[in-house]
């Protein structure tokens, strides 16, 4: 629990990719930053359940904030990711059209892309599309190829931003659900559901799916819509080399087939209006996804399936990003950040932080190194790692080849739950889906954090893998 130890210059509500990116950008300046997050970790909302695609930016309507920040974010992304030790693979992307009418749509999208300033975008013939992506449906009439698009690991991006922000002085408060707000003469005092409070001169609403209630709390009225996106994940090897889309419709980009940086691949997302904020998966959605994906890549649904999951999009009524100062005091909102929010995050955050005209912090260090992984190394490199630290030789997740040493490092960097380790390292994301390693991860968490295993949660508070004696 946090007491009024000091006054922060900025308090960011929400530890998603947007909140973490804004926090990190603000630490470039001489200013005090705190992020309050209602959950137990960062990356539990939309940032932890999306397609992980770095869109080049031909999709948003020219003139919108989405168009501006998408194209800008995509251009920034490669060097941004490199500094943060986050994987980015420039795979390119392919949008395929069937029949003549859809072919016209490609022209429209190409023009939009050009207006948005997207480079290396071409309408290509069927033969070239099939050469780029051999398993795509041979029924296609033409395709839009975007060479600059790529894929990233959205979890790692969010964690990297958090780690780097922390390194440069930002603080993170977890289990802090902002529920009360008091405007004083020169500051805003936020109270959490569990009784703590934080005082800051400026408050920034980056609450993702909670953006509506948080805006109301801060004195502004916004109307947000929720649309759920369901996915099916398949095992490696990937059926496609790059994200493959169909022609977008009024509901969005539609179901796509895409590789993940882990080498696996997925199909999705669906687009389902939802009243509830917590994502869930509909029975029967698998069949829906299969029939949509089969049109793009025939036979794809026969690949070995690993699991299914869902994410929640939270969009503004007009579908655009909204970045504005609220009506009362020093309150800002960065909301409506649905897709391509991941791509846009670097651009949104850097423009936003710059807009305050603050003095630069000379000691700011933009570099973050990822956790040293044993998977994918040669035998000699593995040997070298293990001889430095024998815990690298204790493989706790066999499917994804993750060792005890990596889990300990993830815990050092802030993992507090089984899912926190999973999203940082990919444990339990392979064939056994955690049935062979969740218990080992929980035991390591208990040991490293000095608590009993019954108090180790899967994710949210109270989601223990095991029950205590009195339960």
């Amino acid at each position: 629990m946090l007491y009024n130890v000091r006054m922060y210059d900025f308090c960011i509500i929400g530890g998603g990719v947007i909140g973490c990116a804004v926090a990190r950008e603000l630490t470039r300046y001489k200013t005090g930053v705190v992020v309050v997050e209602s959950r137990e970790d960062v990356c539990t909302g939309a940032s932890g359940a999306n397609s992980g695609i770095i869109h080049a930016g031909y999709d948003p309507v020219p003139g919108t904030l989405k168009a501006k920040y998408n194209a800008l974010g995509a251009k920034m992304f490669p060097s941004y990711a490199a500094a943060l030790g986050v994987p980015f693979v420039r795979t390119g992307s392919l949008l395929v059209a069937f029949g003549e009418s859809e072919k016209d749509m490609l022209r429209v999208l190409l023009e939009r892309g050009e207006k948005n300033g997207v480079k290396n975008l071409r309408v290509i013939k069927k033969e070239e599309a099939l050469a780029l992506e051999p398993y795509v449906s041979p029924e296609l009439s033409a395709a839009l190829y975007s060479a600059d698009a790529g894929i990233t690991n959205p979890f790692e991006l969010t964690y990297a931003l958090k780690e780097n922000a922390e390194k440069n002085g930002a603080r993170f408060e977890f289990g802090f659900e902002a529920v009360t707000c008091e405007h004083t003469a020169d500051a805003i005092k936020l109270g959490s559901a569990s009784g703590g409070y934080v005082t800051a001169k400026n408050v920034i609403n980056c609450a993702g799916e909670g953006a509506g209630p948080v805006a109301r709390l801060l004195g502004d009225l916004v109307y947000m819509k929720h649309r759920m996106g369901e996915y099916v994940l398949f095992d490696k090897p990937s059926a496609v080399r790059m994200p493959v889309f169909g022609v977008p419709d009024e509901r969005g980009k539609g179901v796509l087939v895409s590789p993940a940086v882990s080498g696996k691949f997925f199909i999705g997302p669906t687009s389902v209006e939802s009243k509830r904020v917590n994502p869930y998966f509909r029975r029967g959605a698998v069949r829906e996804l299969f029939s949509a994906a089969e049109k793009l890549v025939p036979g794809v649904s026969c690949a070995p399936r690993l699991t299914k999951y869902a994410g929640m999009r939270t969009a503004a009524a007009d579908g655009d990003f909204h970045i504005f100062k609220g009506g009362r005091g020093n309150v800002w909102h960065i909301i409506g950040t649905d897709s391509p929010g991941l791509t846009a995050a670097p651009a949104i955050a850097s423009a936003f932080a710059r807009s305050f005209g603050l003095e630069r912090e000379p000691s700011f260090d933009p570099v973050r190194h990822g956790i040293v992984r044993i998977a994918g190394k040669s035998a000699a490199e593995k040997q070298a790692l293990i001889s430095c630290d024998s815990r690298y030789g204790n493989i706790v997740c066999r499917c994804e080849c993750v060792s005890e040493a990596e889990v300990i490092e993830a815990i050092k960097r802030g993992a507090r739950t089984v899912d926190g380790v999973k999203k940082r390292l990919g444990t339990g994301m392979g064939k056994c889906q955690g049935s062979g390693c969740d218990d080992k991860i929980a035991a390591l968490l208990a040991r490293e954090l000095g608590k009993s295993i019954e108090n180790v949660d899967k994710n949210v508070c109270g989601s223990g893998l095991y029950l205590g004696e009195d339960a």
Partner: protein
Amino acid sequence: MQTDVLVIGGGAAGLAAAIAAAEKGANVTLVESGTLGGTLVRRIDDSFGKQIFGEVMTGREYVRRFTDKLSLYPRIRVVKGVVTALGADKTAEIVSTDGCRVYKAKAVVLASGSRERTVGMLDVGGTHPAGIMTAGAALKAMNVDGRRIGTRAVVIGSGESGLTAARRLTLEGVKVECVTERMPYSACTPDMKVYCLDDYRIPLLLSAEVSEIRGDVRVREVVILRSGGEEQTVRCDLVVVAAGRMPLSALYGFIKPGAKGIETDSHCMTCSAGFFICGNALHVRSGADNVSEEGRIAGGYAAEYALKRRIAEKAYWLTPTGNVSALWPQRIVAGEGATVAVRVNRPIRSACLAFKDGTGKTVMRKEKLTMIPGDETRIYLDAEDVTQNLYVVAEENL
């Protein structure tokens, strides 16, 4: 490092394979990442050993019989580690706390077992809160680690592992609300149903599927869909998934599978010469005894291969047709007898297995009283029975 036979996996199959290979005079390296005995150490019910040792015992006792024997063979080296890569040239990269070593083997026995189907692979809607576990993970938590995992449970799947879990949960004080089975018949034997469910008054719901799991933090309730379309909500805090297992095949992707997975001859050799496979890594079985028996065959022939004593040359194909969904082995080495395991895709009460030649003429029949999809039927074929390629079909004696 060099070894004659590399056995990957130290469960019921791998242990038997290592001992059999050592008995034939080969130097053996046995790699196991966890505890010797594999998933059997979770089993504290008396369901093992009848066939091989002539007496019933727990999974742990069964393992002890093998591990005690293991120590009598100085030719067997046990490595606690994980095989992280396996090459078609029979080199294996093994990671352990001692380092990362590359082993070169003359023959390899794949005995790496299976994995359980998880909830993400089923068509179950809803959320994914805490309180969902596979039957294997549940058994390990209760029987090995002594943990409490729930108070009221619903078990998905009426196969051997679902029933074993239901019984064990009940004995641990968890109220098992029901076991659901998608098919209109149970996947286990009637004896097993009495032993695990009826004795504890656990209801078995046939033609019933868990269609939705609800709860944001922990499982709160599940929706069960019955055959008529009627839905029923059951309160519980634990869902145990026992919806089948699949061979773990990531390591040996270079071995070309047939239509229904990896195929072997009656020596357990795959189509890649020198690679032998046995146990649940090949096809998923109920009893451990059969698995060990297969391990013994694989280990013995792997040793003969490694020591260049004998390599099978000619074999006849056995092909499943009709109600027979699968069988093992698919090739019978000429001039030898073999035990064949057959699976059917629906229960057949008064069954007989017919073996037909290429023209459709039945050349032999084997009587068998009942055959159920959840359990394999084992029949012994003499060398004289198999002198050509044969097609196998299950016929109902009406």
